[in-house]
């Protein structure tokens, strides 16, 4: 997917000016945040479970190559083919080749963020394969002229019921429906046909299990099961970091993932899929492929950003992020929004291509405290800021302002003079009022609020006078 992260500020301004989006964001926030808060209470030692999950993910990342080899060995032994993709282009090439090999004309997809990274639907269409998104949210986006998702687990969270009703009416050419059950029924009727006629199923993978060569999938609509069992060919596309050692490790992560994501104790469908259909089995694909994708991940292993690879894509960080809640996912400009996206986008697409994202956070650490695998997101964002400074990527006036502040704060006499002048200037600007309406030294502040006026003298002046 082509990144629009460079235009973060303009994207965010558009989001703020969109009243429908603002209403939709408020509705969504309440659901996710409140439900998670209730669901995590079901686990006796939630904090201990986070710690254990973190350790499982760290154990994998410390020897990622070995666990991947182990996975490849186990999966191959069960009749699957494991392929490796360096980047999005290679994902597209692999899938197109598999499609051609098996004479595929239609591919039914369950949700895969990797396919968003690769812009897979476009490539499939070019290769003569018709991709059909079957996750309800992704389906809505596909029929809306391939709109990108705005959330990693709730891709149409930015849309209202009314907007979906209009879309279905226009695209399906059916009478406009306004009840959710009627709309989902309509989508099911359309999708059922595709499930039965697709030659290939494409899914993501929530986890890969090294000891068994399995992929674990959690979905709420059951479409994942249709996609992975009905068509002759099943292609799993996941990042290389998604591997876990054992089924037992998987069980812990499966306790944390749905609770953190949607506030569910368990997702409606949990599938652990292993190998191709054997002669004794009636269901399942004849051909199973795993495409394990790097696309920037391997470069993060062993760096100060490795903690980010623990991510299990629950979306809790964005659900709890004051910035995400205010501007929605599209503003971030690439596949992954919110705090995790603000770390991943610069790492995967280049620091210089997402210059605003690490800065677009208040560092409130709400994300860090809800992350089920304890990724220190604010700390990683801060380190990215440090990288930007090291590489001289910040604008000149910011660098200048920081240099001045560092110099002044390092010298008590300069600081005393600077603060003496500063408060008098601000007091003069306020012109006798208790606030300043336009602050030219920091114009962004007064775009949407006033700047309270200072008292008029510094503490150090007053304190020294009082002591004399």
């Amino acid at each position: 997917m082509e990144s629009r992260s460079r235009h973060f500020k303009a994207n965010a301004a558009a989001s703020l000016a969109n009243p429908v989006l603002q209403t939709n964001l408020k509705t969504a926030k309440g659901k996710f945040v409140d439900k998670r808060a209730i669901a995590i209470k079901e686990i006796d030692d939630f904090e201990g479970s986070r710690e254990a999950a973190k350790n499982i993910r760290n154990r994998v990342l410390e020897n990622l190559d070995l666990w991947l080899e182990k996975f490849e060995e186990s999966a191959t032994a069960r009749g699957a083919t494991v392929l490796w993709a360096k980047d999005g282009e290679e994902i597209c090439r692999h899938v197109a080749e598999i499609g051609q090999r098996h004479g595929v004309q239609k591919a039914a997809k369950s949700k895969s963020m990797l396919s968003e990274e690769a812009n897979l639907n476009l490539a499939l269409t070019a290769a003569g394969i018709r991709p059909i998104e079957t996750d309800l949210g992704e389906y809505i986006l596909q029929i809306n002229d391939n709109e990108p998702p705005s959330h990693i687990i709730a891709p149409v969270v930015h849309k209202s019921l009314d907007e979906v009703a209009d879309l279905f009416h226009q695209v399906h050419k059916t009478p406009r429906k306004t009840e959710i059950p009627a709309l989902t029924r309509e989508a099911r009727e359309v999708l059922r046909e595709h499930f039965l006629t697709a030659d290939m199923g494409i899914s993501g993978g929530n986890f890969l299990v090294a000891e068994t060569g399995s992929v674990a999938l959690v979905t709420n609509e059951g479409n994942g099961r249709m996609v992975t069992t009905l068509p002759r060919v099943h292609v799993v596309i996941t990042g290389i970091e998604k591997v876990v050692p054992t089924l037992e490790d998987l069980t812990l992560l499966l306790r944390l993932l749905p609770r953190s994501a949607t506030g569910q104790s368990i997702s409606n469908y949990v599938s652990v899929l292993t190998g191709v259909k054997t002669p004794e089995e009636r269901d399942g694909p004849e051909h199973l492929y795993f495409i394990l994708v790097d696309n920037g991940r391997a470069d993060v292993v062993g760096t100060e950003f490795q903690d980010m690879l623990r991510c299990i894509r629950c979306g809790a960080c964005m659900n709890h992020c004051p910035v995400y809640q205010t501007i929605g996912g599209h503003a971030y400009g690439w596949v992954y929004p919110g705090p995790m996206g603000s770390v991943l986008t610069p790492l995967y697409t280049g620091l210089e291509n997402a210059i605003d994202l690490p800065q677009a956070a208040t560092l409130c650490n709400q994300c860090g405290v809800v992350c089920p695998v304890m990724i220190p997101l604010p700390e990683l964002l801060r380190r990215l800021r440090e990288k930007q400074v090291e590489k001289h990527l910040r604008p000149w006036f910011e660098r200048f302002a920081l240099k001045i502040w560092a110099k002044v704060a390092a010298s008590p006499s300069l600081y005393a003079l600077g603060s003496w002048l500063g408060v008098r200037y601000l007091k003069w600007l306020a012109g006798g009022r208790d606030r300043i309406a336009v602050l030219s030294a920091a114009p962004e502040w007064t775009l949407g609020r006033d700047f309270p006026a200072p008292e008029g003298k510094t503490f150090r002046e007053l304190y020294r006078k009082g002591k004399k």
Partner: protein
Amino acid sequence: MRVALFVTCLVDLMRPRIGFAAIELLEAAGCDVIVPAGQTCCGQPVWNSGDRAAAAALAKKVIDEFVGSEYVVVPSGSCADQIRNEYPVILADEPEWRARAVELAGRVYELTDFLVNVAHIKTLPGNFSGSVTYHDSCTGLRGMGIKEQPRALLAKMSGVELKEMAAAEECCGFGGTFSVKFGEISAAIAAKKCGNACATGAQTIVGGDLGCLLNIEGKLRRLGDETTQVRHIAEVLTAKK
């Protein structure tokens, strides 16, 4: 107890009365208070902007200035967090300095935490009267565990009625330099905080970090609210009728 006050640059510039209120509270708790004269900024803005070298220089300056004081008290959760939790990280590659940072970390307290858990203050100097709602500033709350301490102090004042707001623990949108880099987003987040605070009907919004308070007050006034007061916890605890 001998306490050195770290005033913080925002208090120094914008609201000296918070510094004096902090001194009054510490003295009421039986402390001898000094204010080291050379102090400036804890370095949080440069650290959060990614300038490690400048942050390290300021950290060393603070460490030197507060040598020998029994306790260092800060009327700001985020500045206290910078000194206690970030200095050892900033100076991780310089073992001697790191050791000094860790030693200082053991003596640094946020004001309300110190008053409640170290000084065990009995009687407050103020007699504020009115309804208040308390905004939990992010770094104080999640970095320093400041939650019950300010409420315990407010509970000692018979004239105070605490009306908790919805989402008190959510960010007000300040975020230090975030507020001047992404002003519109920052102000939009502040509007939600103001909405939650005002919905309680409290006359005064109280908090422990001046940055958040300036953000909230600025947004209230821009929204046309001329009546809701915004005060630092130290001001409330020392306010005279």
